[in-house]
């Protein structure tokens, strides 16, 4: 009885979380152009999506920004973790405090502050300013998922590698890096996801002419969202679902073999 109740509760929450997603998926097959009415089943929005240059350009921007910003954030964040691990406690506390600012600060404040920075220093608004902003809010996600891994590492293993004649660089890539990998990977995925889903910060730092999917949707809200957009998000969601399940299963297993704790 108790167990059934628990399962029912979990099911309710998932219904709440996934109902809008299911709705969007259904709408992507709706032949009627308004979302209020069901006009029969169709694939035509998927066909029209392939010819909608506006949406495809926004998709391209979104994916490029997500990819570049998460890769750069992963590199900077991982290097920062290595550096912070050897710092004095006080310096590290300050660095972690600064890292927490974009996490705890409101997106609207982060967005505005970056917009003011770009204006004051004469940056040209566009792809570049969006990218810089996304790197900025992505780095903390990387640091916060790599740092716990870093703390678990035993320095003796790295020292042993040095004693056995490895150069610091070789020792790092052969010994330390593989142990950090799960943290780096989940940080990267988190950063990519956050970049992809961001609207508010992009809204303030994009300038005219450049659009990501989020900002494009926001300008379409008043005119009515094009059904092609539903088709596109359904494709993205389905693709990611499959991909993430694969990616998520792989490193977890490897990790368990390495530390049979």
């Amino acid at each position: 009885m108790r167990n059934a109740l628990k399962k029912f509760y979990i099911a309710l929450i998932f219904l709440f979380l996934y109902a809008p997603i299911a709705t969007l998926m259904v709408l992507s097959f709706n032949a009627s152009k308004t979302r209020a009415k069901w006009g029969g089943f169709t694939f035509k929005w998927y066909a029209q999506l392939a010819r909608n240059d506006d949406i495809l350009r926004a998709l391209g921007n979104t994916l490029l920004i997500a990819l570049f910003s998460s890769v750069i954030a992963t590199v900077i964040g991982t290097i920062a973790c290595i550096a912070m691990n050897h710092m004095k406690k006080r310096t590290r506390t300050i660095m972690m405090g600064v890292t927490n600012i974009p996490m705890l600060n409101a997106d609207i404040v982060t967005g505005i502050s970056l917009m003011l920075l770009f204006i004051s220093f004469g940056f040209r608004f566009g792809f570049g300013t969006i990218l810089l902003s996304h790197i900025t809010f992505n780095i903390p996600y990387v640091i916060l998922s790599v740092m716990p891994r870093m703390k678990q590492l035993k320095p003796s293993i790295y020292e042993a590698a040095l004693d056995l004649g490895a150069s610091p660089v070789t020792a790092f890539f052969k010994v330390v890096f593989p142990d950090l990998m799960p943290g780096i990977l989940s940080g990267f995925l988190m950063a990519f996801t956050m970049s992809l889903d961001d609207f508010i910060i992009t809204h303030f730092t994009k300038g005219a002419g450049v659009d990501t999917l989020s900002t494009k949707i926001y300008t379409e809200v008043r005119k009515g969202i094009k059904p092609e957009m539903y088709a596109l998000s359904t494709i993205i969601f389905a693709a990611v679902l499959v991909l993430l399940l694969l990616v998520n299963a792989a490193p977890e297993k490897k990790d368990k073999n390495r530390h049979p704790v």
Partner: protein
Amino acid sequence: MTSKRKWLSAPYTLWSVVFIIIPLCMIFYYGLTDKTGAFTLENIAAIATAEHAKALRLSILLSLISTLICFLLAYPLAMILANMKVSQHSFIILIFILPMWMNFLLRTLAWQTLLEKSGVINNILTFLHLPNINIINTPYAIILGMVYNFLPFMVLPLYNALSKIDENVINAARDLGADSIHTFFRITLPLSVPGIISGISMVFVPALTTFVISSLLGGSKILLIGNVIDQEFTQASNWHLGSGLSIVLMIFIILNMIASAVFDKEGEGSML
């Protein structure tokens, strides 16, 4: 060696100074000056005008309610999940992160379709001969949108904190004669405080400052403080006033940061 390692911290230090610290200083500069560049407190005092104060009050009220609802929904869920002993910790996180791959604006807009007068939910209610609900374009719809969007940010820290509690502590309490209510209030709840604090700040700040949820689900009549600031920047181009109002918002954010620094020193209640 040490000098080399110090050099390693350079890229991030430089990055955080240029893109985190300086931009925050810019907000204070703009917020505390007028168009001629002279010092003024007017932009901050503007929060007291009827229109702005009303928006701020409504924002605080709605975000407090949604934070409370998120907490009440998430705590039992996090307890159930933490007790499930799922070997795949990351799988649970994945389930809550996954919705983010469907665009945040579209997901929120989907609630319009669900909540509308002749929407999906009302159709189901009519079918079941239950009274219809009519909350679209009201503050209730905004609360629903906030709870929907920020619930994962409450569940994940709570789940992380609860799954770190040593089961032996709970067993010990039971062995010593505490009933389940006692064990919960004396052991489980106090030990999950880092998660609670982190969850509250992860939900309260975005809810307090949102302008998207209110403009998508609240019609165009309900203004939250986020909407006011957004308008100052994107329509009125009054950056000084917008910055001044942001400084007011930052007071709440800083209080939040202090609370998380005091209660969550080890980062135990972190989201990841």
